[in-house]
């Protein structure tokens, strides 16, 4: 047993210790778990001592797929041979991270047998990470997991595993069926996940409302966020109850005065007035007064494209590219699926190597991106129209006509729908 003086120091304290867990595998695990974990702990302690990492990448995949495995080979394998290969399987969880104890126990059994016994719930992209096995174990574990209905997630220049919030399953704020949207899109694009051939990674994330509990706007190339078009629902009795409870001043300070667009006004009789056209669906007032306020009934989604971390041009958040889309009927879901496919296809065709779609948009300009995807420009896409007069506008009237046609079309549609 390798001494682990540095790691030992991470066993105290009130928070569950990963070191204790690793040691338990080393001390009480299956034979192979023990062997792997002893050397893994040794190498990790070595890293703590040297303050350097000692893994390097490589190429490992399961039969039939090109991605989904993160291969790790030790640079200090001579000292710690049993963990010289320590690959990770990225496995897609059920949308919304729902499990029962039975399936979790099955995971444990499989990974105890074919891997190190170490599983992470979940990686930052949403995968179950089965961490630590050799090349052979990779295939075996995958086969076993695949038999019980689980599939590999994404890695490399490919479609990545997506995330969706708990949403419809338990949350009154949810504005669309996240599970269905998530599964529809990813399952239609599975080939891009399993056989990496995109210019770079591409991530989807699904949040049921603007609280964005899966951090989609920053962390997804394609973020789907629930919203609504009609009025916030107000229960004035509950408003009064809330004010009775917390006091008028507190209510003004925490609700009226925190609305980003001054859309809320408190009447002198303690009823609440919301100027819905000014409301930006930020969720704040609804979050504070969960009984008194709720999202409207005419619900749907917004789509933001281009979120990512800083390589190479700096952090980007997703840009509102589809302000609103209904998502109720089968046709609605088909439309969404088609749009997602189009964006991924655009990305495949137009991005430079190692360029995220947000970078592509930044490089070619939003107008060019919209044109390529045949999306009509909309004021909700911008904080405000251009401030720079450096633009050639001799076709302005033609462009304006497109807007007027669209408005006429929308008006017509509304009329015929009535």
């Amino acid at each position, binding site marked *: 047993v390798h001494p682990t003086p540095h790691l030992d120091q991470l066993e105290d304290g009130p928070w569950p210790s990963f070191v204790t867990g690793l040691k338990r595998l080393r001390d009480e695990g299956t034979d192979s778990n023990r062997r792997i974990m002893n050397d893994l702990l040794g190498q990790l302690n070595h890293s703590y001592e040297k303050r350097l990492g000692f893994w390097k990448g490589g190429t490992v995949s399961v039969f039939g797929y090109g991605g989904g495995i993160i291969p790790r080979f030790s640079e200090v394998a001579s000292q710690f041979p049993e963990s010289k290969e320590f690959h990770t399987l990225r496995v897609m969880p059920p949308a919304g991270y729902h499990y029962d104890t039975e399936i979790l126990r099955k995971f444990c059994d499989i990974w105890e047998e074919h891997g190190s016994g170490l599983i992470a719930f979940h990686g930052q992209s949403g995968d179950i990470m089965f961490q630590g096995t050799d090349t052979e174990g990779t295939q075996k574990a995958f086969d076993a997991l695949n038999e019980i209905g689980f599939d590999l997630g994404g890695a490399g220049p490919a479609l990545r595993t997506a995330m969706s919030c708990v949403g419809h399953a338990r949350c009154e704020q949810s504005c669309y069926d996240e599970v269905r949207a998530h599964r529809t899109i990813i399952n239609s694009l599975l080939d891009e996940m399993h056989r990496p051939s995109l210019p770079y990674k591409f991530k989807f994330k699904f949040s049921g409302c603007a609280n964005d509990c899966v951090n989609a706007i920053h962390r997804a190339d394609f973020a789907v966020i629930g919203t609504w078009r009609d009025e916030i629902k107000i229960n004035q009795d509950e408003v009064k109850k809330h004010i009775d409870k917390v006091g008028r001043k507190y209510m003004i300070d925490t609700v009226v005065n925190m609305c980003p667009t001054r859309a809320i006004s408190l009447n002198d009789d303690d009823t609440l007035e919301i100027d819905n056209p000014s409301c930006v669906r930020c969720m704040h007032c609804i979050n504070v007064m969960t009984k008194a306020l709720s999202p409207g009934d005419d619900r749907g989604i917004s789509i*933001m494209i281009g979120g990512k971390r800083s390589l190479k041009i700096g952090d980007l958040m997703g840009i509102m590219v589809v302000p*609103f889309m209904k998502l109720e009927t089968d046709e609605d879901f088909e439309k969404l699926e088609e749009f997602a496919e189009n964006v991924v296809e655009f990305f495949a065709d137009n991005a430079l190597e190692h360029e995220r779609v947000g970078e592509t948009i*930044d490089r070619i300009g939003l107008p060019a991106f919209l044109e390529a995807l045949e999306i009509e420009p909309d*004021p909700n896409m911008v904080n*405000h129209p251009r401030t720079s007069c450096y633009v050639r506008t001799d076709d302005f009237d033609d462009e304006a006509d497109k807007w007027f046609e669209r408005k006429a079309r929308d008006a017509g549609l509304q009329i015929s729908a009535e």
Partner: protein
Amino acid sequence: MTEAATPRMPDEVGVPDPFPYMHPIMKKNYGNWDWHDRPRPGVLHHVAKSGDEIWTVRAGTQRQMDVFTIRKLCDIGDEYADGHIRFTTRSNIEYMVDDEAKVAPLIEKLQAEGFPVGGTGASVSMVSHTQGWLHCDIPGTDASGVVKGLMDLLHDEFVQEKMPNRVRITTSCCQINCGGQGDIAVNVQYTKPPKINHDLVANVCERPAVVARCPVAAIRPAMVNGKPSLEVDEKKCVCCGACYPPCPPMQINGDDSTKIAIWVGGKHSNARSKPTFHKLAVANLPNNAPHWPEVKDVVGKIINAYKKDAKHWERMGEWIERIGWNRFFDMTGLAFTKHHLDTWTGARKTMNMSAHIHF
């Protein structure tokens, strides 16, 4: 004229001291004012800590004034006010009086002589204007004429205070925009790359300077008909006109390609929100002198929508931010196009990177 043999050396006096010209009450209470209110549109009433009071009556002028008009204003100042005058940042004239009783006769006289009294508080003040065809060497349109037309249109809003907050309109006769940012800005917008008069380039154009001025590096030196000239990459050119002042042969103005764009939501004050730049509302309006009806039409629509819908103290841009740009375009009947999407440096930061949305 012939005495010019020993020319006079300038007396470098610099910025003149204003105290000799200042109204005595202002001089006396300099730096010691307490509060103010506005008894009526066009009139400010300031009270000093000493208890002294002063009333200011503000009136519109045409800025570019003939000596007859100026003398008339002086006559009024001598007869109805205390002989002290100032002009405001926006070329309005102000008379200060030490007695409330002097206010009404002064107003009456000004109105009788054709000077609208107003421009205070939540009014539309004078359009800040520039030189145009009257004097500038690079104008795409006139300035004085546009201003006159707009102020005729907005006269009622100048003499009353019925807007949600003050409205500052500016106009500029070329894209350089000496008139600056405004709640509404009426600016020339070139719509075509410059046509080069190659015969003249060699003589009057400092070619390296022009090449350097182009913000998108669209200009290259070139030989045309065996003479050194320039060429423009029309795909790149953003029609900014920056090449025209240093190189007049780069003809950016054309009687039908010089157009007017209207911008909204510029704000200089730091009240509430930070200062902002104005944003494109509509481009490609015809340069229809002498009445610019298309321009007036749009300005009128914008003013009316703002007047009807904004909350007290919201400036134009703040109102639009609150109600959303889509509602602004709907209310004014203007179109949102791909040209409204910013494509200049830092454009990324103007995009809506959030789920905030207006319906």
